[in-house]
């Protein structure tokens, strides 16, 4: 008896060890499409597609890993490199690191859209896709388009109407745009006006960083060496100016204090935030302390063009070139629906008009000019202003020329050092030297002389 029990126990243990290797997909579908994403946006879109197209035939298995703490890229890279049945068939990349997947170290994994059964030239023209979206998504090695985004992320200044009236006696977007811009000099003049009445112009230096980042001529890496663009170096001084004069609440973006300023309950009331349409809908609306006009700061906002044009964020969608042909064609259908179609059942139309999950959803600017032309961007959150009037022209500032594949890491190192400088923990020269050292040590990229 003992013998039997021990044999059974041994077998159970051995089975426990190997059971993990078995596959568990025995569903009656053509196969599984593995989808890697850093938010639930694209997985939700795909769910909607499956709802609209019940005959699609494939099941989709989403893996969502947030970009906070820089965890998404390592996971995606390793999954792509490992290959096999669990490899991602379709994956998303954000503007801070999309170049790595379209033009950099991981570009060889991307499948050209043409191989997915998409008529690239015809459809991009019909949808009037912004040039920068295509520039970023084109692989230089074979000039093939491998990625497209569904958003357009030109940025604007999003400001509080009540504060504008108190300081300048008007909340009209054109007049306010003329007060706070163009250029940083006018911006700081406006900051002084606001300070005199006890307001901060922005919440922290993170708010102006994206404007600084995208107004630079060149990216962080030029000819394989680290290059600090004069515009980006000037961020040290802009940031110091904000902090020393008390023009901001010295918050860090994506922290509780930053969110508190959207609700107007920070150290001093904050006049504005810098961001694209997605910031309004996905971040500010939820943190405004209300859900309809009159509650919290909801309805007290408006958008005007930014003192310095910029763009921030955006998601590009890619397909794995190593997937089999049938699966590629299926992924192609998903990608086509998400990035290129323009009719009323297309993703971009529903995305722009906030109808993806029924009427009254959040609105956003999308990559297709054709869709933008027939969409309406009126928002209660903005006091009824049509935000597309400001955001569509803002898209001209977007370009992919000053991005590099290591931006996420380098930006973090740079902003860390700027914070040390503004806090008075090191001198300006030390901050730059420490930054160069950190980039060399952690990325193996030498600084240019």
């Amino acid at each position, binding site marked *: 008896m003992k013998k039997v029990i021990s044999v059974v126990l041994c077998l159970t*243990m051995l089975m426990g*060890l190997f059971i993990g290797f078995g596959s568990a997909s025995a569903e009656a579908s053509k196969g599984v499409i593995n989808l890697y994403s850093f938010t639930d946006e694209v997985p939700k879109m795909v769910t909607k597609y499956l709802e609209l197209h019940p005959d699609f035939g494939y099941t989709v298995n989403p893996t969502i890993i947030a970009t906070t703490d*820089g965890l998404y890229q390592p996971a995606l890279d390793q999954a792509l490199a490992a290959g096999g049945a669990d490899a991602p068939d379709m994956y998303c990349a954000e503007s801070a690191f999309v170049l790595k997947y379209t033009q950099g170290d991981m570009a060889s994994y991307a499948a050209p859209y043409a191989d997915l059964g998409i008529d690239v030239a015809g459809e991009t023209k019909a949808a009037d896709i912004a040039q920068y979206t295509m520039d970023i998504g084109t692989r230089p090695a074979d000039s093939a388009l491998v990625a497209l985004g569904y958003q357009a992320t030109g940025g604007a200044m999003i400001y509080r109407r009540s504060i504008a009236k108190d300081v300048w006696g008007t909340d009209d977007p054109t007049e306010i745009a003329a007060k706070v811009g163009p250029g940083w000099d006018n911006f700081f003049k406006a900051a002084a006006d606001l300070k005199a009445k006890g307001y901060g112009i922005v919440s922290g230096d993170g708010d102006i960083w994206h404007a600084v980042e995208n107004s630079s001529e060149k990216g962080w890496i030029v000819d394989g060496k680290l290059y600090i663009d004069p515009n980006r170096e000037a961020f040290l001084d802009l940031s110091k100016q904000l902090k020393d004069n008390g023009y901001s609440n010295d918050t860090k973006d994506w922290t509780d204090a930053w969110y508190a300023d959207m609700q107007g309950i*920070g150290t001093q009331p904050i006049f504005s935030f810098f961001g694209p349409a997605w910031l309004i809908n996905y971040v500010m609306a939820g943190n405004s302390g209300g859900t309809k006009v009159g509650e919290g700061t909801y309805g007290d906002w408006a958008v005007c063009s930014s003192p310095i044009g910029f763009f921030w964020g955006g998601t590009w969608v890619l397909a794995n070139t190593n997937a089999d042909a049938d699966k590629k064609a299926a992924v192609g259908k998903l990608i086509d629906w998400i990035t290129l179609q323009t009719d009323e059942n297309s993703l971009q139309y529903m995305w722009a008009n906030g109808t993806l999950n029924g009427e009254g959803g959040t609105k956003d600017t999308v990559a297709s000019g054709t869709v933008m032309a027939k969409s309406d961007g009126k928002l209660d959150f903005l006091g009824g202003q049509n935000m597309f009037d400001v955001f569509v022209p803002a898209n001209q500032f977007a370009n992919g020329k000053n991005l590099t594949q*290591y931006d996420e890491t380098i930006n973090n190192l740079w902003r860390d*050092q700027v914070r040390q400088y503004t806090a008075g*923990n090191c001198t300006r020269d030390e901050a730059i030297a420490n930054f160069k050292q950190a980039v060399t040590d952690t990325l193996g990229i030498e600084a240019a002389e």
Partner: protein
Amino acid sequence: MLHSGKQPKGISYAKYGYLFSIPFIVAFLIFSLYPTIFTAVIGFTDFKGVATTTFHFLKDPFANFVGILNNATFQNSLKNTLIIWIINFIPQIGLALLLTAWFTSRSRKIRGQGAFKVMFYLPNIITAATVAILFSAIFGYPVGPVNDILISLHLTDKPFDFSTDPWAAKLVVAFIQFWMWYGYTTIILISGVLGINPELFESAEIDGATSRQTFFKITLPCMRTILLFTLITSLIGGLNMFDIPKLYIWNGGPANETMTTSVFIYTQAFSGTYMYNRAAAASMIMFLIIAVLSVFVFYMMRDKYESRQKKALRQQKRALRKAEKEATI
């Protein structure tokens, strides 16, 4: 011998021992030994880049090791690791000893010991990610509970940025480590004290020893092995500290001031340019440092009386043999 000659029919348990150990050995070989050896090997190669699968041995096999030792960020991270470990470990072992002394005291019985032990141990059960988020909220800037308290008590007039000041950040990380692990250390030490023969305490009591004398003359010396265990595990754990420094502020920020060697190794290998070779070299260097420090701790904690006796015994034997030899001649 009663059963000699004819073996009784029984079960030889030895083979089941082997059978039962197979899963562990297989798992160990695949998931532990192989990666370790692989890491040791790629430290000498040019293996880097995410899409690479082939690699070659370097002409100068120690180039990665020299590079790492000269790397200012590595030196800084080694310094941070030691600082954070020391300012977390000394108060930790101190508090753990104090709690142990109270909880095992024979003269005053503390009520609700079980409840206290659970409470002390609780921080250890919460995952590091949760703890890191909790503490970055608590030490939030410019608004956060700690800053609110400091300002309302008029200890400062404007909020203090705990996550930008290099020393504040180190102290917070060290405090989190302390807070997470003192309960564990206390439980281990209490079990060590409970393992001491109670007769020793009784006789000390009869001889009129004070509780202070009992603690320092009986409890502490009898806990040598358990203290050694605590020191070694904490040393290894402390020098491999990863989760809190990685998660509390982005990748060991601010400006690498809470970057430990493990975070450094991670950033070398997995964020940015995937320098597996340099990360492997750094891992091996850390392995050597930890091994040397562990040997040092073993040496410091050895039973001096016992080793002296052993030495004397050896000398005696040698003298005896010498005398015997001389006698035979």
